[in-house]
């Protein structure tokens, strides 16, 4: 069996793939290049090479506090989403109750719902109850948006777990909890990890929900970035973006090392 492409079709395929890669990566490469640009404006092509913007950006308190705030918010959101999403996914796959498929649809609905609308709805809800704690509001709102990612990836990996494994563990004397920690969780760990990455990323660069709920004391980094562009359009914005990209890649690499993410994504 030899499925290797040859001749013209191979050439076309390579060309399309290359075009696709350029299409996806060019803006990112451009941003990274601009972050080292030695000029006071965003120019194309970038001029010279300097680390000046990095020094400046890391001195920029608004940015650094926005960055720490967003990392904190994204981590808390991810933890909360996993803590709720995994049990929810288990109930949705293993449970036998009326309205299960309806619930499944509801649990996944924030994925297809416009996030902007979700944010506005939550703003109305929170102000209706007179809630003041911005951090808590942001955490709840982000979790509403991100938990379906965990539910979905965990649902998918649970469906691939042989239900007899659970039963085998139970007959061998494992309690429900032991069965989960020793048998089920190791099976779904890659799914939990990829769901966590989605959660982290979606929360970390969320603008449309945060926009409604943030206040000047609690500014996530995407909002800081947007404000920055509104005032000055120098390469520092690109530098901030590059730092964010580096952070995102770091998160993916760490999780890949921990649980073998590539395997999970390939599912």
């Amino acid at each position, binding site marked *: 069996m030899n499925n290797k492409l040859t001749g013209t079709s191979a050439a076309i395929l390579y060309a399309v793939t290359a075009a696709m890669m350029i299409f996806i990566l060019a803006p990112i490469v451009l941003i990274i290049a601009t972050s080292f640009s030695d000029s006071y404006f965003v120019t194309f092509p970038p001029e010279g090479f300097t680390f000046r913007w990095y020094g400046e950006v890391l001195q920029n308190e608004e940015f650094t506090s926005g960055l720490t705030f967003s990392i904190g918010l994204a981590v808390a959101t991810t933890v909360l989403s996993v803590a709720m999403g995994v049990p929810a996914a288990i109930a949705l796959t293993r449970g036998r109750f009326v309205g299960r498929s309806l619930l499944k649809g509801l649990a996944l609905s924030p994925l297809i719902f416009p996030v902007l609308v979700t944010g506005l709805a939550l703003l109305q809800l929170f102000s209706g109850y007179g809630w003041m704690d911005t951090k808590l509001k942001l955490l709840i709102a982000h979790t509403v948006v991100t938990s379906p990612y965990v539910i979905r990836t965990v649902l998918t990996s649970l469906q691939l777990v*042989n239900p*007899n*494994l659970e*039963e*085998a*563990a*139970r*007959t*061998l*004397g*494992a*309690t429900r909890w*032991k069965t989960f920690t*020793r*048998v089920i969780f*190791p*099976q779904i760990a890659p799914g939990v990890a990829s769901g966590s990455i989605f959660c982290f990323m979606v929360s970390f660069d969320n603008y449309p929900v945060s926009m409604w709920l943030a206040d000047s004391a609690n500014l996530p980094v995407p909002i800081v970035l947007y404000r920055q562009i509104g005032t000055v359009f120098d390469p520092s914005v690109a530098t901030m973006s590059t730092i964010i990209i580096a952070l995102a890649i770091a998160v993916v690499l760490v999780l890949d090392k921990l649980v073998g993410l590539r395997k999970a994504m390939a599912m």
Partner: protein
Amino acid sequence: MKSVEVRLEKLTKHYLGQVIAVDNVSLTVKAGEILALLGPSGCGKTTCLRMIAGLVDPTSGEIVVGGKPTTHTPVHRRNVGMLFQNYALFPHMTVAENVAFGLEMRGVGKAAREKRVRDALDLVQLNTFGDRLPAQLSGGQQQRVALARALVIEPSMLLLDEPLGALDKGLRESMQVEIRSLQQRLGLTTIMVTHDQDEALTMADQIAVMHQGNLEQIAPAGEIYRKPKTRFVAGFIGASNFFEATVTARNGHAAQLAAASGVSLQAEDMGSVQGDKVIVTVRPEAVTVAPLVGEGQTTGANMAVATVEQVVYRGFMLHYYLRLANGEPMVAYRQTQTEGFGNVVSAAGDRVLLSWASDANHVIQIN
């Protein structure tokens, strides 16, 4: 290992909005015996097994193990060893870790655990495989690991859920013998689920045939083959020829019967069968096939003239597919050596004379 008796008392399982899965099943598995729950898919045999394991809660009825009711004992405290068709080995654990799992759950110390895991792997001749992952083993090896994992906890009984269904024929047969001899050596009460009558006959001391949630018959392997109680059992275990017949005369246990197809039958033992309308079964291997001498040849009891429709060569057996004068089918199995035509095999279209001994007629009561 101490053998225990397992008793099911009026065990019933209803699923909401579905037909009854298991209906009022009572049976006893003697200590140290293998019982096979045999039946077509959907007959309730698997639900029965899962209730014994504790994986399914019965709607009503009682499960008594070693004299103690265990119906409401949670599954992880029942101490059963269970084998699944797909082995259900934990894919992220090595063979040794898989086998050690049950011991770990019981809080057995590390040193004792390691020794018992080694012994269990010795038992299934996989002592050099401890460090491998399940995915690196063949199907047969995986099921032997599952067997070691089930036996190492010294279970009060072994439950087998179509454990060999995924293996190919040769391996399946050798595993049947291996499990059977291991079970006998350990004296472990065993309940197995299968849809394969050969597997049930090979491995089980007693066979319980189930059909649509009901227990049709429970009997030792030989008896269930020779004396099926219902038409379903007669048709499910081996093949049978059926005659709908009317009793014309009784003489003690013996009786003369007239079949609807015009064949007259002589039965030696009516058993406890009541009523005049009955079904008579005749095993295909009891039917002799001989060339018809002349069309006018008289036929007595337990004889019939038939037309050969097809002869299938099955190695040491010939299967004759026949049709009686009134259109009813019959089947006869003859050993190739004793074939009635000498070396000439009869062909489709031949007219033949069928006959069988009167003790081959087994009478089944119609309910």
